[in-house]
Structure formats: structure tokens, C-alpha cells
């Protein structure tokens, strides 16, 4: 799991037409094959390019269902209060992401919310 980084703090937004936006901190270089792998549960994996894998941890429970139904989302990368770039990322839904999240210190939204 060492090749992954965790985003830790980001915003998901839903536009008026139901489109989903991810606001993330700006990253180095430009994305080449942006894709999000998601199983509808706690965490997703954002494949920004071949060597850059980012865990989108603790997806807000209120948006999970909408995210599950999305075929693509808009990624907006920001620097302080400015937008670095924005692009479309495909959503790849899977039944289960075969990773043991606990091994990298990730838990569930409920546990974190309760401070456990």
C-alpha cells in the first residue's frame, strides 16, 4: 500500500443538474488517465495517472448512493483559493475493492465521527 497517498480532506459537491464534483488539493503534473474506482462503501481509489494513486477516504455517506450511480465526475484541483485545473474522471464501479483498509489506518465514517 505504500504507493498510495490519502487525501484526508476534500469536498464532494452536487450541482443543480446532479453532476458530481470533487474538490481536491492540487497535485503535481497533469493527470493522464483519471479514473475513480469505487465500491459504494467507505473509501474510493483515484487513479490520477499510472504512478499516482490517491485514496479518497471516508466518502460522505450522504453522497455515496449518488456517486455509485455516476458514470463520470468532475475533478477540480485547487491551490489555496485558486483552481489549478479541472477535468472529467470516469467512475469505475466494482463490487468490492479488495483492500484491507485497516492496514493503512482507515476505519469507517461512523467510527471516526464518534471519535473511536
Amino acid at each position: 500500500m505504500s504507493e498510495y497517498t490519502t487525501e484526508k480532506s476534500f469536498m464532494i459537491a452536487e450541482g443543480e443538474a446532479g453532476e458530481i464534483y470533487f474538490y481536491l488539493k492540487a497535485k503535481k503534473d497533469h493527470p493522464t488517465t483519471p479514473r475513480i474506482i469505487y465500491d459504494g462503501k467507505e473509501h474510493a481509489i483515484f487513479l490520477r495517472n499510472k504512478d499516482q494513486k490517491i485514496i479518497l477516504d471516508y466518502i460522505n455517506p450522504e453522497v455515496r448512493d449518488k456517486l455509485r450511480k455516476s458514470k463520470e465526475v468532475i475533478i477540480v484541483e485547487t491551490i489555496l483559493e485558486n483552481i489549478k485545473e479541472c477535468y472529467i474522471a470516469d467512475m469505475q464501479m466494482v463490487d468490492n475493492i479488495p483492500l484491507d483498509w485497516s492496514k493503512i489506518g482507515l476505519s469507517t465514517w461512523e467510527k471516526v465521527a464518534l471519535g473511536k
Partner: protein
Amino acid sequence: MTKMYPSGENCANRTVDESLKKGWEKVEQKVGRVVASAGLTAGGLKVTELGFRLNESMVNLGNHAADVADKVLGGAGAITGLGISGVGVAMTGAGVYLGYRLAKDHRLKEKFVKAYKNSSTKIKTKVTPFVAKAKKTIEEYREGVDITDAKGRYTATYVGNGKYVEQPLKKLNSNIKQMWQKLKGNVR
């Protein structure tokens, strides 16, 4: 109407509104801690790294907390252009909080670093840790990224080795820009 869903470990235990409250508590703690223990006196001036820490916090806090912090730390008519080689200094009754105004964006941090190079040895000694942090921040934000001004207007692209290349203004989707205006207070 835009709906927002804060996500990630740092957001999992608070709603958007709650984040403002929590964020403001953090500011209060930092103000107390920095003033109490980390304040440095340079030539009779209180110089702290509060500015940089506050900037990190305010990005998280949202406009409300930022406004409150503004009033407490530098607003209310207490701003004075003290000028250390052209860098503004925010003055309050508790002392001078160097960096609060400087930390609004990384370009101001750059000015801070430049000013530091021209400042006296005494001040350099006192602010060295803050300069190191500012430099690190600048490099992190700079590397291979487009630089925009406070209004989101494109200014240049940093291409490494201290060089910038100017390019035509990037056209951004207006929807995205509008949403960003609403969201930026709640995104780190």
C-alpha cells in the same frame, strides 16, 4: 442549489456548519498558544508564526471564522503598514503579528522571503523558522503548476528553476468557478 458533502478523515466528524465552529475553536487555541509561548521579540516587535498557521486554519474554516479572525487579529482599524522592506505588518494591541497579512496567499509569502533577505541580522535570527516554512510552502505550490491571482486570473506557469512562463488566460467552466466561490471556504 449546490449541495456539499465534506469528505475525508478530517471532515468525517463534522458538518459544514460544524466545521466553522470547530475551526474557530482551533484558531482560538492557536492564538492563545502562539501568543503565550511562541511569540518572539525582535526589536520590540512581537513576531510570531501565527500568520502562517492561521492561514492554514482559515482555509479550512470558511468565511465566517476567517472574518472573526480578521477582526481579532488585524481588523478593527488596527492594521498598520509598518514595513519591513515593503512587507506589511498587522499590528494589534498584543503586539505585531508578522505574517497574518502576508499569509493570504503564497505570493505574499514570497514577498516575505524576499524581505527577509534584506532585513537585519537580528530579525533574520528571529524569523528564520518562519521563512523556512514559507519557502517550503512556496515550493510545494509552485512546482509545475499554474499561478493565478486572488481573483482567479491566470498569471503564469512555474516551470522550475525559478522560471515562470506566461500563457493565455485559462478558460474555466463558469459553473465550476461559481461553485468554487461557494465551496472554497470549506476545502483545504
